[in-house]
């Protein structure tokens, strides 16, 4: 909100140096956002905080200046000349909803000639960002800027039955507003009406019909106080935000209508002539009690940590127009001026004192309080470990939006219903992700299109979904998931996940690449990760959740018999429709059960050496390594400690339906060095097992 300094100076002797003025306001809570030069005049653009509607005027700023710059308080005492005309003969006023309109004051001026306002008024309106219209409207706006209270002027001719009724609108009642828009009203909206129709939406905007024009002769000037909540709701319902509603919804001075109306009448009489009726009509829903707040001096130190001398405290409060009524050495009783709608508690006064006294005078200290919890939670520690593990495996950590594209999300989601944003910024970011993969896939698409041919990302973050509560789906209170049980038994949950995505274009071969970005590397990363968390995972080949996966290359990740995620290749044809030309393999891991640390436990180990024997066998293509390995392990070969796959080989020479597997067997005893014959026996036992179970043929 903009105000020229020269106007403020009419009321208060603020310092000449504009930098001092700017700093003074800014550090006491009213930021000067910009200093503008308007035809040689300095105009400040203030950023008012929502709690200080009383500052949003020249007079309000002058009043504040008195404390900020320790100067004299401003005076404001308009005194319009009254005539003998009786106001009751021209208008009567009835307030039907005093809770929404605690005060309604009106003046009437008759026989005026509406022209243009003076050049000074026009210039100032423009400097403050308003448009001059006619002398009467300009005068109301001028007083709004000068004194801060919103006013409205009606053309008396258009008030049917010479009666103003302040009432709630009827449902469906319509009004054409000053901005030309036609609005349908509801009974929650307060209107200023005559006997027939609504003339204005109270505190927000006047009607087009009853507005003052160059042709108006007799006018009614309204200065009222409206309920801030009601004005705010009306402004939201009608989607209109005006200078008046902006002030009313922040709360305004109950005494504001008095001086504001007197001042506007004074200005109009000066510019347009006419006769002001003998008195006002002032309808109050009971007198407003003056607020008194007790202030304990020791409390100031308890909050601020600094001793402020009592005479300084009193001086600051008085400069801010608070009245100190009585006090002893430790207590003050402070009377709050009517314009300070934001001050009602002791803490409000403490803030007033320190912002004027100077926040820069606070010393710097360190609190000694001890929080017994302190440090990171278990899940935060493990998350960090995962981050460090994966970033040491040539993966870049990605962070994506929690919102995603509803066209991609279902391809990767297999549980819960999607949560939509009611007010998304765009359709492609209109739901909350149920999987981390879609946004990572978009990152792959972008980076591959930039010419990156081989890379890997991981991301740790939450996925979100909702489901209907049934007995069997009671949320698990021990897990790391956050959840809310909402109305109609809808449960909204957030689950921590980890996703890894590897990308490689078919042709990539690089001298220094440590590992290829393929499915076996991905599996190794997953195994290594689980191992680093001292968990053992296994894999179960399955049909994938959706078409986007390569149907034959997908497996679930299991740990302690629980499903912990999945990994696999994405189908290259589907990727091509997303304009991704390389190979993409992904893993998504459910972190909720993984975010716990466990200590390693020591096991006795053999001090005797390993003996190693290599085996090369020929088996049918469809023999799975895992079943072969399990068969050997389950046979309880006494001294067999480890099986290490060396090579998988397929070639025309051995037949298309076959593959050759070469692996090493490690034997070791806890008691002795094994002899050749002991090892030989066990190797033969294994060979026999492979022959009978897999029709294996020994190659060497």
């Amino acid at each position, binding site marked *: 909100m903009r105000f020229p300094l020269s106007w403020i100076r009419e009321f208060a002797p603020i310092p000449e140096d504009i930098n001092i003025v700017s700093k003074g306001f800014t550090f006491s*809570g009213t930021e000067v956002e910009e200093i503008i030069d308007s035809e040689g005049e300095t105009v400040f653009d203030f950023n008012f*905080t*929502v709690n200080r509607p009383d500052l949003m005027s020249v007079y309000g700023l002058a009043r504040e200046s008195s404390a900020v710059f320790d100067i004299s308080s401003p005076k404001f005492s308009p005194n319009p000349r009254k005539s003998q005309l009786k106001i009751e003969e021209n208008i009567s006023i009835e307030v039907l909803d005093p809770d929404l309109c605690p005060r309604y004051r009106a003046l009437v001026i008759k026989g005026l000639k509406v022209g243009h306002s003076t050049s000074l008024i026009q210039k100032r309106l423009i400097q403050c960002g308003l448009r001059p219209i006619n002398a009467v409207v300009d005068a109301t706006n001028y007083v709004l800027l000068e004194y801060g209270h919103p006013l409205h002027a009606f053309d008396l001719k258009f008030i049917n039955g010479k009666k103003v009724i302040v009432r709630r609108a009827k449902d469906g009642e319509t009004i054409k507003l000053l901005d030309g828009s036609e609005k349908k009203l509801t009974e929650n909206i307060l209107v200023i009406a005559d006997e027939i129709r609504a003339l204005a939406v109270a505190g927000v905007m006047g009607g087009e019909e009853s507005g003052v024009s160059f042709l108006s002769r007799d006018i009614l000037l309204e200065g009222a106080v409206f309920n*801030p909540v009601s004005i705010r709701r009306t402004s939201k319902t009608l989607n209109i935000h005006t200078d008046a509603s902006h002030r009313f*919804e*922040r709360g305004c001075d109950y005494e504001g209508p008095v001086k504001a109306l007197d001042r506007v009448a004074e200005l109009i009489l000066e510019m347009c002539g006419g006769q002001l009726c003998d008195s006002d009509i002032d309808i109050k829903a009971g007198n407003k009690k003056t607020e008194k707040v007790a202030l304990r001096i020791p409390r100031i130190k*308890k*909050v*601020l*940590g*600094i001793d402020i001398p009592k005479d300084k405290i009193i001086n600051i409060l008085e400069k801010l127009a608070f009245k100190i009524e009585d006090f002893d050495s430790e207590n003050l009783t402070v009377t709050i001026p009517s314009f300070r709608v934001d001050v009602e508690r002791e*803490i*409000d006064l403490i*803030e007033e004192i*320190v912002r004027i006294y100077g*926040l820069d005078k*606070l010393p*710097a*200290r*360190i*609190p000694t*309080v001890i*929080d017994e*919890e*302190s*440090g*990171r*939670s278990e899940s935060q520690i493990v998350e960090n470990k995962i981050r460090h593990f994966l*970033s*040491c*495996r*040539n993966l*870049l*950590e990605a*962070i*994506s*939006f*929690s919102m995603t594209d509803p066209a991609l999300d279902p391809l990767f989601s297999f549980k819960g219903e999607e*949560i*939509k*944003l*009611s*007010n998304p*910024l765009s359709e492609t*970011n209109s739901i909350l992700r149920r999987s981390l993969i879609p*946004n*990572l896939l978009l*990152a792959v698409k972008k*980076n591959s299109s*930039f010419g990156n041919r081989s*890379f890997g990302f991981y991301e740790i973050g939450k996925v979100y979904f909702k489901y209907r509560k049934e007995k069997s789906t009671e949320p698990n209170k021990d897990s790391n998931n*956050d*959840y*809310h049980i*909402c109305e109609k038994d*809808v449960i909204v949950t*957030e689950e921590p996940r980890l996703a890894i995505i590897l990308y490689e274009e078919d042709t990539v071969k690089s*001298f*220094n690449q*440590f590992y290829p970005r393929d499915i076996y590397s991905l599996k190794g990363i997953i195994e290594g990760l689980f191992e680093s968390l001292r968990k053992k995972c296994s894999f179960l080949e399955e049909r994938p959740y959706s078409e986007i996966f390569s149907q034959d290359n997908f497996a679930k990740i299991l740990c302690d018999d629980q499903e912990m995620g999945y990994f696999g290749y994405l189908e290259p044809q589907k990727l091509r429709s997303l304009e991704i030309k390389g190979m993409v393999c992904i893993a998504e891991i459910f972190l909720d059960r993984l975010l716990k640390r466990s200590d390693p436990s020591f096991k006795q180990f053999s001090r005797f050496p390993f003996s190693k024997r290599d085996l090369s066998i020929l088996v049918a293509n469809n023999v799975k390594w895992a079943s072969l390995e399990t068969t050997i392990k389950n046979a309880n070969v006494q001294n067999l400690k480890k099986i290490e796959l060396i090579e998988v080989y397929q070639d025309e020479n051995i037949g298309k339906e076959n593959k050759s597997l070469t692996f090493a067997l490690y034997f070791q005893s806890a008691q002795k060095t094994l002899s050749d014959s002991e090892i030989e026996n066990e190797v033969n036992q294994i060979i026999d097992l492979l022959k009978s179970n897999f029709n294996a043929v020994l190659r060497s």
Partner: protein
Amino acid sequence: MYNFDLENIKREFQIELSKASSESDLFELKGKFIGKKRGLISELLEKIPSLSQEERKVFGKEVNLLKKFFESEISKSFDNIQKKKSSIPKMDLTLPGRNLFSGKIHPLSQVREEIEDIFISMGYTIASGPEIEDPYHNFEALNTPEDHPSRDIQDTFYLDVENMLLRTQTSPVQIRSMERKKAPIKLIAPGRVFRRDDDVSHSPMFFQVEGLVVDESITMADLKGTLLSFYRKLFRREVSIRFRASYFPFTEPSAETDLSCVICGGSGCSVCKRTGWLEVGGCGMVDPKVFEFVGIDPEKYTGFAFGLGIDRIAMIKFGIDNIKYFLENDIKFLEQF
């Protein structure tokens, strides 16, 4: 008379030695012939007590000679194998190394972890909470009623689940922590927050850290000292801070914090827009109404709270000029940190 054919043993040894081609073969050979427990020589020596006095002398001498022979032969073979092994061809050591560790942690995670570490060193708890919130925890308990203009400061994303929203700040974590733990309390809450705002300098999702300390003798001076000490540690240099009075619904008195520009040291540069100061976040003393909402006695306890943007800190710390980079997942950006 003893009848051990030492010559035969020697021959056997020589045959096996000629076959041994690796170190492990040699170890096996060594074990078989001169091993302390099962070696042939040991076995021979064990026989000595069964021989006559004269035989013992001769036999002992011969066996010892044989043992020395085995030892020197095995040792020679070891040397030979070692020699073969160490003859590495000349390689090009200017070739690139295998790329093991080119992964990176996201700059926002790095900064978050550093911030957390500083506060942990001062005894703080790292708290977290849900990202989907209800209006009570995100607004009402923070003294921001629905019908008050302070609601408009933060543009909120609402969800298609009745009464649910994406948190606009991490303050609801403070509320939940105070509800659970009451006082004393000393925590920071880092996390992602959402505001319906997307322009050059705003992202609809960004990262915040908020701090909260509640006890019987917490003052605004403690707030100032805490922030000063934190920023000194974070930027690893001498800095100063200043407070500007401000307004937040959940603190009173409230202030904006300015940090002396860590780029130019306060003399004025483009980052601080020639002011010498960087705006880094809001803070203040917890409003007694907030204490009432969570059931902490506002007479007995006082507390301070502060907030700062992790994105903002990362931008200052790393010299990043556009907040949008953080969530674009561009390799050229991520690999720099």
